[in-house]
């Protein structure tokens, strides 16, 4: 075995059980989204959805140290964050199927998937919409004397929204326990980050808020985990926010309506070759956290959980149409 100090951060830092659970959740994300895609094609899900296949390391490594008290705000591409934070895939499918047993009782769908009990304050249909909300959650923690941190996910496209600027500035001046994680998958819908954003790395913008900014390989579980670990430590120590940019890629189109005209097949294939799940799995095997058979079992269990989740969702009741105005206001 290699000198312990040379092992990747995640292997050094986390217990084998934690690492296996992380791999399990990454498979769960992948299979969940594949299952959602198929369900969509079979007409079980309507509307649209945004798949994060290819970005699983970013979601999972960012959330590995979080408890249910810690919060996240997520995006339109939020299934991975939701599962990484601990949600149940059955209730997620139920939501996508528009069922009363879904996390949002069928009112939200994919774009608003949330699980407030595990600290997921919700996906958001508005690009950048969750960024100030995350800062607010961090403000609550600080004012109410709670140790929670908040992780705020957003995309490269979102970093050009005014909300990004205003929120990061406030987080910085108030030294709030929030970690801004930009999942830079090279495109905001069809628009290259290289065109839309004036700086080469989004983490460069941290300088405008006097906070640390780092760019890491978002498909490298350990690299992400280490950056987030440091940022969480900083946040919990009262030293304020950080900006982390995870370079990654979505294999699928932006949403169900994407003709993929803005990127090449080669580019997509290059990135498929950089599968973050296979990479993490290989790393765990290399470092003796699990063996092939165990890995296979984890993978199979994820597929099984997804099947069961779909079944649960199918069996679940739909909301009653007479309840269309229910949940608009608190019930008296």
């Amino acid at each position: 075995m290699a000198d312990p100090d040379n092992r990747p951060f995640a292997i050094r830092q986390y217990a084998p059980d934690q690492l296996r659970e992380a791999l399990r959740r990454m498979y769960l994300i992948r299979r969940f989204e594949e299952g959602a895609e198929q369900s969509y094609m079979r007409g079980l899900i309507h509307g649209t959805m945004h798949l994060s296949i290819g970005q699983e390391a970013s979601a999972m490594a960012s959330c590995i140290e979080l408890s249910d008290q810690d919060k996240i705000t997520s995006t339109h591409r939020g299934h991975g964050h939701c599962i990484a934070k601990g949600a149940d895939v059955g209730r997620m499918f139920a939501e996508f199927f528009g069922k009363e047993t879904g996390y949002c009782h069928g009112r939200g769908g994919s774009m608003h998937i949330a699980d407030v009990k595990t600290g997921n304050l919700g996906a958001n249909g508005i690009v950048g919409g969750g960024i100030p909300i995350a800062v607010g959650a961090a403000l609550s923690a600080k004012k109410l004397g709670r140790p929670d941190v908040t992780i705020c996910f957003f995309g490269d496209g979102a970093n050009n929204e005014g909300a990004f600027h205003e929120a990061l500035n406030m987080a910085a001046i108030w030294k709030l326990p929030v970690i801004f994680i930009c999942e830079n998958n090279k495109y905001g819908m069809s628009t290259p980050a290289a065109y839309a954003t004036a700086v080469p790395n989004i983490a460069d913008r941290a300088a405008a808020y006097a906070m640390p900014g780092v760019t890491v390989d978002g498909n490298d579980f350990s690299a992400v985990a280490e950056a987030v670990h440091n940022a969480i430590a900083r946040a919990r120590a009262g030293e304020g926010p950080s900006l982390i940019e995870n370079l990654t890629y979505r294999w699928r189109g932006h949403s169900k309506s994407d003709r993929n005209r803005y990127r090449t097949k080669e580019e997509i294939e290059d990135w498929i070759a950089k599968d973050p799940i296979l990479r993490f799995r290989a790393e765990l095997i290399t470092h003796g956290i699990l063996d092939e058979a165990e890995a296979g079992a984890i993978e199979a269990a994820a597929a099984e959980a997804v099947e069961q989740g779909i079944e649960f969702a199918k069996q679940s009741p739909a909301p009653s149409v007479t309840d269309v105005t229910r949940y608009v206001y608190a019930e008296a």
Partner: protein
Amino acid sequence: MTTREISYSEAIREAMAIALDSDPAVILMGEDIGTYGGAFQVTLDLIDRYGPERVMDTPISELGGAGVAVGAALTGLKPIFEFQFSDFAALAMEQIVNQAAKLRYMLGGEASVPVVFRMPAGSGTGAAAQHSQSLEAWFGHVPGLKVVQPSTPEDAKGLLLAALADPDPVLIFEHKLLYKMKGPVPEGAYTTPIGKARIARAGRDVTIVAGAIMLHRALEAAEKLAAEGIDAEVIDLRSIRPIDHETILASVRRTGRLMVVYEGVKSYGVGAEISAMVAESDAFDYLEAPILRLGGAEAPIPYNPDLERVAVPQTDGIEAAARSLVRGEV
């Protein structure tokens, strides 16, 4: 409860102090609400009494600031967020409308956003088009929000305390010209229910619905009309969302005539909703005349003071319109 004469802004400040005293989750946020005391001096010395941890100056970042308040409300705080002028809420519509108003629903009832937005509104200060709007109708159109508009110091305090007790987002439209107006206000904590209008003057000949500064002009007009034998009922609207249908309809059934007075631009304004609500109700059958709306001019608020005055309803105009309505000249 003892009642004293204090001003509308003192009443609001008193409500905030009660809230800060009684609930550690309450914080105030807004631009220059600390040392400066707020653009209209409503927060005045609260920073001295509660410190900058509870009375937080925000950078000039309306969208982000409102969003921080929403996120804080979602996770345990009860922020009272002051827009320096309600016009600047135009910068924060996304957080107010797409987030605060919809979060409970989008999350199927699993989340609550108990935030209060304070909205200094209205014209009459010579501040021109971007600092004088009355945009309350926009928010009335948004399910998930509650929208109130106090006309008296007593209600300014009671509605703010009711808003704080409400688990959903509430916007309070405060009229700038009322801040210095005095009136009787009970000491201590009490709430004015959201969604209830008030008959400010009982009368038989015509129902005049008005809110904020317009209530006072309508009451003045009613006094003048009384001298000529026209007995107007004046209803203080108080709540824009939800509207107190019953109080208004009952009044119209009695008087047979309705006039709505409001400062916002006439078309698509508050008066449109009230008129339409009556016109589709059973009170329609009691109407003896068209439903009159007296609203703001179809123009931005102008700077020149004479233009500014004619851009919104004034007492004499209300009086004349009510007279014509009662005399069947409309």
